[in-house]
């Protein structure tokens, strides 16, 4: 395991250049180019805000802000899971011909989605300042930790889905449905308080719930998240990453034969 991590570390330049290639190549040729990184989530936010604060009134104060702090981390997570799933298949030409630790591919995909999220946080901070809500500097200090936990979580799930999709191609499409359901099962557009008490235990099994709650505490409520929440999120993240990397290293031996 340690040897594996060392090896992946020695391939760090490959991760960096794949991330750079992905970020630069993604909108190459389109007129608005990199702006699409912002436009896409911006419109999602506008649409959801219209629906939930004009048509189906949720009664949450400043709903747009409430939504945005959960939605942008969610977009990162769901794109990591969906894109991570096909990261090996889409690069099968290299996988078949060159040796490198296969983990590099999902890692770089998740990382590039992560960098994308960081750019999108510009929107969040812009909204915070423009509307005069402002920030709590002490709470903001917790933000990198929460982001790290979400990264670990997303990476763990991306590793599992990437490895399984090689053997079982339907997973790519199944995951599309799963992430859609997952989004509504995560308190992004509503608060945990609205969830009926009797299903709360099941609800708490969702590893993303504490992460989103933490984001919201920091940015929306401007307070330091509960230690409980942070602890829960971290444990979830580490466990899933462990499962992910073990599954991956086990399955990757036969990748080339299955591709």
């Amino acid at each position, binding site marked *: 395991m340690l040897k594996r991590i060392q090896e992946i570390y020695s391939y760090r330049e490959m991760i960096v250049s794949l991330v750079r*290639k992905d970020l630069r190549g993604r909108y*190459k040729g389109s007129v608005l180019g990199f702006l699409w990184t912002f436009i896409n989530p911006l419109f999602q936010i506008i649409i959801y805000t219209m629906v939930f604060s004009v048509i189906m009134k949720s009664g949450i104060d400043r709903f747009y802000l409430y939504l945005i702090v959960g939605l942008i981390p969610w977009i990162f997570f769901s794109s990591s899971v969906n894109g991570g799933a096909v990261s090996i298949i889409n690069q099968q030409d*290299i996988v078949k*011909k*060159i040796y490198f630790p296969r983990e590099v591919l999902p890692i770089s995909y998740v990382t590039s989605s992560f960098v994308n999220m960081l750019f999108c946080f510009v929107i969040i901070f812009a909204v915070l300042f423009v509307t005069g809500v402002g920030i709590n500097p002490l709470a903001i200090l917790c933000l990198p930790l929460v982001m790290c936990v979400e990264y670990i979580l997303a990476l763990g799930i991306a590793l599992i889905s990437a490895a399984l999709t090689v053997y079982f191609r339907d997973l790519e499409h199944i995951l599309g449905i799963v992430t859609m359901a997952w989004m509504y099962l995560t308190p992004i557009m509503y608060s945990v308080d609205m969830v009926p008490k009797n299903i709360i235990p099941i609800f708490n099994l969702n590893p993303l719930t504490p992460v989103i709650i933490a984001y919201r505490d920091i940015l929306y409520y401007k307070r330091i998240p509960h230690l409980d929440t942070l602890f829960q999120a971290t444990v979830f993240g580490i466990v899933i990453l462990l499962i992910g990397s073990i599954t991956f290293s086990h399955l990757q031996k036969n990748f*080339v034969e299955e591709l």
Partner: protein
Amino acid sequence: MNAENVIEVKNVKKKFKVYFDKGSSLKEKILFQNRNRYEDRFVLRGINFNVKKGEAIGLLGKNGCGKSTTLKLLSRIMYPSEGTINIKGRVSSLLELGAGFHPDMSGRENIYTNASIFGLTRKEIDKRMDDIIKFSELEEFLDNPVRTYSSGMYMRLAFSVAINVNADVLLIDEILAVGDVSFQTKCFEKLKEIKAKGTTIIIVSHSMGQIEQICDRAIWIEDGLIKEEGVPKFVGQHYLVEMEGKRLEKIEEEFQEKLDEQNINDEKENIMSIKNVRNARIQSFCSSRAVRTGNGLVNFINVKLYNKEGKETIVFKSGEEITVKMNFRSNLEGIKSNFAVSFSRDDGLYCYGTSIYKELDYLVDIDKTEEVTMRILNNGLLQGKYLLNVGIYAEDDIEYDVIWNVSEIQIMSERVDEYGVCRLEHYWQVDELKLVNSIEVTSIGE
């Protein structure tokens, strides 16, 4: 692991599942369970070899023998089903050139991407950058997007990156055919230089020349097993002779089949075309490439080749006896003719020709003769494909019937150490010693 070995391959086997009809989607997996039947096919059936530091090994073998699989196992792209492979140090595999190139990015950026895939860090790439650029000879184009490159330039850039990854073990699969001749030579020189620095190299190539030049040892793999291992020159010769033998066997087989068919056809033909031989210009005894000219006063009706045992064939060994038998028919009485026989090589080079009249001042009386035979006691032709030409001429060189390429013959040789058109009978002498077959040494006086 033995201290001086860099690579140890122990009893490595590799099997692949060969699906009869593979489905990888859920529907296919559930609905067509019987389609998921597969059989195991062993590509490697127990391979053992060790490689010392700085050694260069060439892997030989026909397509599908398992040499590329071996290389993939060594590079850890695949894992063996049984057995172990131990490698010390960084392995770099040049199985694919230009991996990860992005057409819209500049040459320089692509160098970074490509080199990083080989596991280099940014520092290491920066250090090698000048060497890579210099080697690729693409200085002026380096900041243009790669999509504007010609395919030769593309490959040159890719090769330059690959060859400058200072690995401890370098695996190369059939990629030395890059760019123009001068660049190829340069790549080859670079490989030699890398080898001299102590890098272990393993090459898969079909070019014996390349393997002989660079490798210390050749390994011939056949049907998943090592068939021979040793000095590249000798292993290569054995390999080539066997490959050639197999090819000729096949040609011989086809020829015999055609012969059987022909015998039946000939009987029919003889009945049908007795009156009008002229119309059937290209007859069944001629090869498909035959060209026939002449006024037809005298016609060949059969031309056949026999070996020493009197068996009809078109495959001969170098130095073997060849007999050319010609049968003919005349449409006029009282003709005297000259017979000519010549050989050309497959590429058109005229090798040898002679005629009975010019050589012996003799003309054949057609009415009284049934068959003219030329016996070549010791053919000096070297390995290759040759074409037989025959002709019947009048005394004043007017063509009665000339058939170019009447037969294609294959000459095979156990030696591949001779070059040119034909073997000249000779021996070597060193002072008073006469050398025979490079083994026996006899004194000239004896």
